[in-house]
C-alpha cells in the first residue's frame, strides 16, 4: 500500500524523494511562535545543524495564537505528528500568551487522548531563540517516535 502511495506522488509531482506523508516517511507539522521557537529553528540553520526533513513549520505570532483546533486540522490534512512550540514560561514576548495556551493544551490534550488520538503524535515544547540544539533534538526525536508507531493510524480525524 505504502509503495503505491509513493508511486502516486512520483507521478503527481515528479519528485521521487518528496516527503510522502506515509507512516514510514511521516509528514510533521510544527506550529511555532515567531519570537522563540522560530528563531531557535533559524539558529539551528545558522549553526548548520542537521535534522530530519519531515517537518513543515507554520509560523504564528505567539503560542497564544496557536489554536488547539489547528492540531485537528493538521491531522485531517494527513499530518502524522503535530508539534506546538513557543517561548518558555516567563519568556513570552507577549507576557502571557504561552501561559494561557498551556492551560488549553493541557485540557485539549486530555480530550484528544480520551477520544482515542494517539498522544504520541502530539508534542508540545518550549524552545527559546537560543536553543537551536533543542529544536534539532525535538524534531529528530519526534520524527523517530512517529516512525516507530504502529503503521495503523489511530486518529479519528482521517477519512475512513
Amino acid at each position: 500500500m505504502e509503495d503505491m502511495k509513493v508511486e502516486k506522488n512520483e507521478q503527481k509531482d515528479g519528485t521521487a524523494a518528496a516527503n510522502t506523508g506515509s507512516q514510514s516517511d511521516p509528514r510533521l507539522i510544527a506550529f511555532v511562535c515567531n519570537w522563540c521557537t522560530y528563531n531557535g529553528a533559524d539558529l539551528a540553520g545558522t549553526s548548520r545543524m542537521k535534522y530530519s526533513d519531515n517537518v513543515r513549520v507554520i509560523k504564528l505570532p505567539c503560542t497564544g495564537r496557536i489554536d488547539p483546533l489547528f492540531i485537528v486540522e493538521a491531522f485531517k490534512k494527513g499530518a502524522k505528528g503535530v508539534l506546538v512550540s513557543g517561548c518558555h514560561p516567563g519568556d513570552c514576548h507577549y507576557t502571557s500568551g504561552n501561559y494561557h495556551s498551556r492551560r488549553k493544551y493541557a485540557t485539549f490534550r486530555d480530550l484528544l487522548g480520551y477520544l482515542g488520538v494517539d498522544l504520541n503524535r502530539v508534542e508540545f515544547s518550549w524552545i527559546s531563540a537560543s536553543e537551536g540544539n533543542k529544536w534539532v533534538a525535538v524534531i529528530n526525536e519526534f520524527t523517530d517516535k512517529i516512525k516507530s508507531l504502529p503503521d495503523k493510524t489511530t486518529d479519528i480525524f482521517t477519512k475512513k
Partner: protein
Amino acid sequence: MANTKTDEKLQKIAKDLLESGEVNLIIGYTKGSNPQRMRPVFITKPEEAEKLSFSHNAVQDLAVFLKKQEVKKFGKIGITVKGCDEKAVNALIQEYQLSRDNIKIIGMQCNGVIKQNLADKGETKVSETTVYDKCLICQEHTPVLYDFLVETEEPELSLSGNVKPYAEIEKLDALSTEEKNAYWAKEFDKCIKCYACRQACPLCFCSRCIVEKNMPQWIDTNSEEPGNAQWNLIRAYHLSGRCIGCGECERACPVNIPLMLINEKMARDVYNLFGYKSGLDINAKPVFGVFSESDFNDFIK
C-alpha cells in the same frame, strides 16, 4: 401526586414577583399532558402562576432559554432552577451573558430527577437506580445561589455505593488508544450533525457557532467522518471547564451518543488540573480566562 406544598410555595413566589413587577417573565415547569413529564412554561401574568409546578420529573434545564433573544427581551426574568441548572445561570453571569440584577433565581431543592425513559414506563420513585448519573454525584441539591428557595418534600437520595455514576469513564480510561478510538469512532459515526446537543446546552450561547463559520471551514459539515469527530471534539473542547453537567446535550441527542461521558471526564480533568469547577461562584474567573505560572507543565518538553 404533585408536591402541592412545593407547588404552592413556588406559585406564590412567582405570583408576587410578577405582581410587584420585579420580573416580567417567569420561566418554570408545568405538568405535561403526560403525567410523567413536565414541560417548560413561560408565565407573564400573575394569574397564570398557578400553572407552575415542580417534581422529580422536572428534567429539563430551563437555563437554556436565557440565551434566547425572545426571552432576553423581557429584561427582568425569574427562573425556576434545580441545583444543577442553577450552575448554568451562574456560568452565564460569569461569562457576561446575564446580569445578576436582571435575574431572580427561584431555587428548587431537588433530590434527583427520574430518568425520562424510566418515568415514561411509570417509574415514580426517586432512587439511585432511577435518577440520572448527575444526580448521584450532585453536590448542589440545594442550589448554591438563589433569591428564593423552595424546599423539597422528596426523601433524601440514599446512595448504597453499588451504583457507580459515569462508571464508563474509568472503563474508557483503561482502554488502549486503539480501543478508545474504535469506541468513539463507532459513537461519532452515528452523529447526524443535527446540533441538538448545542441547542439544548445552556452554555452554547454563541449567536454564530463555529460550525457555521466558513473561511475557514473549521468543521466539515457533512454528517460523516472526519467531520463528525471534529464536531464532537470541538463541542466538548468549548465546554471544557465550562460545562456544569446538566446533561441536556446527551438527553437531546437523537442517536444517543454518550456525551456526558466526555463532558464529565473533562470536568474531572479540569478540576484535577486547575482545581476549578464551573458555575459555583458568579465572582470566580472562568478557568480559561486566567492562568497560573505554576500550571501543569509536565506534558511540555
